[in-house]
């Protein structure tokens, strides 16, 4: 059995969770086992059908006071309970901060290795892997891939965001098993104490926009987004950013494009001052046309784009805005 840890939001399972389920199905093909899912906390309406539509045959639903607030250790306790009761060959989670944290806890508790940010299964090259699972994962900040052997006792891994596309299958019928695992006092200590709600998540606008104007470190600071925001507005599009931008606190996280942000597939993506690291590319690769604006003609974003302008975004973007306004009269 392959167990997938599923994260939910108002819309049901998150996209990266469905990607993880899809990866679990590929794994299940090799081990000939079924795919199960674990949901912790509230069970959104329609979630079970949604998971069944992605090939999940059993949903383990952890309930109880321990799960009233998120904590890496309490979630791991729930996963561990299912692993023990249902004898999982592998546990798969999305490569989100929470997915990574919960899997790290699980691996530590079970004293097994863990593979972070897996992008695929390794080819069997005829070598003796001693029954281990060969996975391919991102290392060196995405500059290289690593083939890694993962013993199955169980195999514990996270799937890098947007490395696989979530795919539906003809729906199976899924059963739901509720359980309330015992949680140790020590595990409760590290739960979230309070959350300051962020500004409303508008990434829906980002993921459905026909045009996305993106900006990265090249914006230079929190005050450097005026021109790109104006261009987005002129084109009726949305603003998107790289992780550097959200890490620095220049823009909110829901505007982030990439492996740990949103995946976009607009008709046009205008990427300004973004180098095009593999984790960013994971979120924008399915854009129909990409126009890169960058001072560096060798930046991956430029070499991978359809069109490019070489230059300073703070000069190029205002000139584009002015030209659009001039032609509109």
């Amino acid at each position, binding site marked *: 059995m392959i167990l997938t840890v599923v994260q939910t939001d108002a819309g049901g399972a998150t996209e990266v969770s469905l990607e993880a389920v899809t990866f679990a199905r590929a794994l299940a093909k090799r081990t000939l086992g079924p795919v199960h899912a674990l949901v912790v906390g509230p069970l959104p309406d329609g979630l079970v059908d949604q998971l069944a539509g992605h090939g999940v045959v059993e949903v383990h639903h952890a309930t109880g006071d321990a799960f009233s607030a*998120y904590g890496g250790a309490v979630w791991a306790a729930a996963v561990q309970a299912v692993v023990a009761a249902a004898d999982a060959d592998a546990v798969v989670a999305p490569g989100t901060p*929470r997915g990574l944290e919960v899997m*790290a806890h699980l691996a530590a508790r079970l004293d097994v290795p863990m593979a972070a940010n897996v992008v695929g299964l390794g080819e069997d090259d005829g070598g003796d892997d001693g029954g281990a699972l060969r996975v391919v994962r991102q290392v060196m900040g995405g500059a290289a891939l690593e083939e890694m052997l993962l013993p199955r006792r169980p195999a514990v891994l996270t799937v890098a965001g947007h490395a696989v596309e979530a795919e539906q299958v003809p729906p199976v019928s899924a059963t739901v098993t509720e359980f309330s695992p015992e949680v140790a006092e020590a595990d409760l200590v590290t739960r979230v104490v309070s959350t*300051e709600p962020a500004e409303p998540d508008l990434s829906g606008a980002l993921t459905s926009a026909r045009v996305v104007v993106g900006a990265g470190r090249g914006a230079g600071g929190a005050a450097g987004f005026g021109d790109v925001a104006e261009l987005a507005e002129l084109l009726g599009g949305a603003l998107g950013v790289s992780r550097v931008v959200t890490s620095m606190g220049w823009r909110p996280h829901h505007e982030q494009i990439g492996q740990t942000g949103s995946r976009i597939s607009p008709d046009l993506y205008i990427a300004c001052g973004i180098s095009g690291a593999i984790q960013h590319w994971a979120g924008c690769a399915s854009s129909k046309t990409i126009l890169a604006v960058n001072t560096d003609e060798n930046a991956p974003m430029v070499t991978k784009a359809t069109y490019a302008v070489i*230059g300073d975004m703070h000069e190029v973007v205002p000139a584009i805005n002015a030209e659009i306004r001039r032609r509109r009269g």
Partner: protein
Amino acid sequence: MTDVLVCIKRVPDVAGEVLLTPDAQAIDARFVGFTVSAHENCAVELAVRIAAATGGTATVLTLGPEAAVEQLRAALAVGCAAAVHIDADPLGFGPADVVREIAAVVETHAAEGRTHDLVLLGNDAADTGDFQVGVRLAYALGRPVVNGVRTVEVDGGVVTARGDGPDGVETFAVPLPAVVTVLEGGVEPRYPSVVGRMKAKKIPIETVAPRHEPRGAGRVRLTLPPAQPSTVEVLGSGPDAAPSVVDLLQRLGVTR
């Protein structure tokens, strides 16, 4: 008086093009510089601030080759008061192996009367990206762990840490002793002063050998993503390219 231990790792700086060693086990070091990840630089900054705010001390630790002393000196130059060098090639060490060695140092120091109340690490190492040394260390030491936070404060016996969650900024509060992993972005790491650099040179580094045979990281080989031939059409340079850009926008039907 918080005694903070902060763990850093010497990693290849892979901003440019990278090449692999012939055995495909590592990045070819002849063509790259070395650095410490931004997460760990922020962890060092937090360690120094917490030590200053509580009248305590910050100790920096690394498991790495002899050359990693360079990274320890850099942390000493910005205010760490002591340094521990576990002298080993980290290539053969999996996350669980690294943890056993760090835990051994923490336990030895505790037995000598130096308890590192707070251990800070980066959220993930820039080379192996395992995302787990902090959590495993917490289990090895029997301590609570908070992950991926941007700010960390100590008041009395409690660490308060904040970071981004899916629904907004989350606050954690755990009792000391504890382990916390840090994401970049919450604090601006300081630059070393000349005086700081001079002082750092004089601080003796505690060098220890690994105590356990490593079990390894399961690495079979590294591969580089295949180079894609570029088919980009350059529309121009600088603001003069604006008319061709707007022609394109019109052709794509995204503007009138």
